[in-house]
């Protein structure tokens, strides 16, 4: 078993476990922390896949900015208690069964697909480097890039408008 395989296995287990804990923790603070752990594991996967830039961005944006935002909000609202009333048990069960079935169906849908030879090679390739991505981003995808800045602006305005006291 090569080192990359070990890393893959470890990261996978961490990501899945973290995700499970996100949805099972009673305390929202713990959920946020577990989610951050999950994001770190996913960033690890990105590095394994030679997407170094994305890995860093993921940590900065998600784990850093977004999750801290979540944390702030939770703390602002003083929700760090196990205040959430439990949902209807049957509905909960239905939710779990529904999600499980969806996973089952999606996996089962793959059974006929011939992708055994498709390998996501780990450890090689420089496509994920900032230089290459930046070149691509500012040539081919320059228009979406600029539009996304407008999206940000409008999101910012929206957040301010919504958050304002009426």
């Amino acid at each position, binding site marked *: 078993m090569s080192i990359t395989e070990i890393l893959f296995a470890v990261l996978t287990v961490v990501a899945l476990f973290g995700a499970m804990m996100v949805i099972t923790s009673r305390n929202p603070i713990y959920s946020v922390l577990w989610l951050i752990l999950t994001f770190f594991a996913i960033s690890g996967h990105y590095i394994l896949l030679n997407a170094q830039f994305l890995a860093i961005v993921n940590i900065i944006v998600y784990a850093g900015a977004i999750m801290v935002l979540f944390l702030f909000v939770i703390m602002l609202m003083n929700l760090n208690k196990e205040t959430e009333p439990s*949902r209807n048990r049957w*509905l909960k069960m*239905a*939710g779990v069964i*529904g*999600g499980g*079935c*969806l996973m089952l*169906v*999606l996996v*089962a*849908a793959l059974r006929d697909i011939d992708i055994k030879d498709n390998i996501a090679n780990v450890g090689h390739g420089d496509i994920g480097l900032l230089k290459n991505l930046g070149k691509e981003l500012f040539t081919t995808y320059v228009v979406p890039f600029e539009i996304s800045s407008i999206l940000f602006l409008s999101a910012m305005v929206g957040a301010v408008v919504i958050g304002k006291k009426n």
Partner: protein
Amino acid sequence: MSNILTLAYLVPLFPLIGFLVNGLLRKQLNKPLIGIIGSGSILASFIVSLLIFLQVKNGASDVITYFNFISVGDFSIPFAFQIDQLSSIFLLIITGVGFLIHVYSTSYMHEEKTEHFGRYFAYLNLFVFSMLLLVMGANYVIMFIGWEGVGLCSYLLIGFWFKKPEYNKAANKAFIMNRIGDLAFLIAIFWIIGKVNSVGYTEVLAAAQATGDAQVFSAFDLTGITILLFIGATGKSAQIPLYTWLPDAMAGPTPVSALIHAATMVTAGIYMIARSNILYTLSPLTLDIITWIGLATALLAATIALKQNDIKKVLAYSTVSQLGYMFLALGTGAYVAAVFHVMTHAFFKALLFLGSGSVIHAMGGEQDIRKMGGLSKHMKVTNFTFLIGCLAIAGIPGLSGFFSKDEILANAFIKSPVIYGIGLFTALLTAFYMFRLYATTFLGKFRGTHEQEHHLHESPAAITIPLIVLAVLSVVGGYVGIPAFIKEGAHSLNSFLSPVVAESNTILGEHHISHSTEWMLAGISTVLIIIVVIFAWTKFSKRPDTEEATGFGKVLADKWYVDELYEKIIVNPLEKLGGFFNRVMETSVIDGLVNGVGRLVNYGSRQLRLIQSGQVGNYVLLMVLSMLLIFAIQFFLRK
């Protein structure tokens, strides 16, 4: 005048025009004009009919096809008229008697409002049109159109004074009773179409006679068809068991009773059977049934007539009885005798009805003979013509009734002496009740109110002239059929109609009884009838039975309780069934079903509405489940 037969369409056309003009413009026209249009159109028809008759008398007869009425695949029903000896005689009777009654009506109905006067003449013209269609049609479908048309007109005219509920009831009764018969007629037509693929008389009657490989009708078919047709005839011609509508039909104006319920429409059944005589000749069973039903009807109606006190009811039951006679004649295979009796009966029964109308007119609407009496002093013409009518219907020698009735009785004697005996007994009853009627009405002392006595008068000329004409016809009408035992070869009607019944006569064979026997039969009946007439005359002119009938007489006065029996056996169970359906089926089953569907949808939607909880989680769950379903279908079920 090359070939008047091609102008046959004019015969029904004139009454149709009269109907349309009178019916549509009844508010614009005035009474004399309506009367002229109504009567004139019938007179024009009568003239054309007369010309046709003269042509037919010279040996012409034809089927004239005007256009294709119904055409489906290889089956077609042409709109065609059959002009031959039989139909030409009926044409004369219908238009001739019809014309006289129209003239009579102009005076009789004079007190009606103008629009009702116009409506009356429109109905009357429509009736004549339908009757002509019935008689002239060259196939069963055209006949059926006329058949239904006369039924409709009969309904309309019985209920002419529609403001009285009991009159409407009588009209409904007539219509429904006729409908029962019509259904049978219709089934018979379908049966014929199924077998022959044609409804023309020529084709059907030819098919009936085909034998061997070409045979179309089995014995069962023939019996079935003829019995169904006969049931149709019992409805229209008021025979047992469907006769009860005819006495109630007297609710209509008296001229209507004379025209429709005595002279013409009720003879439609006889015409139909005479027209399809070969079918009947080939099915002896049906002939026997007709004989016995005719005989039973004649006897039953005659007994009822003995105790009726309404002048029109007596005549109505007498009509039923005489129709029974005609069916008796048909049943014995004496088709010519039946047609002969139709003709003479049309004369004297129209005369009697019109006479009774004149009496009722004079009495100011009174119809109860117990309140009349002694009218002969006041109404000379009516009295005299009514007496002639009574003598004719009683069968006094020298008048028309004698010849036709005697011919029927002679044929009955050939068939069986028992039938003859019952027929003769019925004839005696007829003489008795007719002279009871005559004596009670015209002889003795007047029993009505003083006011009525003061009001008594002879009717105007428009009423008396038709009476006189009909009286003359009632006397001389019989001389077209002088029986062979009086003068050989003088039965001109027989020789005239022989082409129509030729095949039947060949099949039935000639059964002649000796002239001496016939003399004897005629003598016996004449003597007996004269005795009865004298007995009735003396009995009722001195001491009319004005008191209520008791014992057996009450049974007769109440018409053997046949109406009550029908009420119990048919109407009540039907009403109960209807009530059951109304209460149970309607409310619980049908309403329950309809309301149940509504409630189910209501309930279901209320339950479905709960899905719309407004909670996002539920929506997401449903969304996931739906996605799941779509995936499942996409990946697993598509193969």
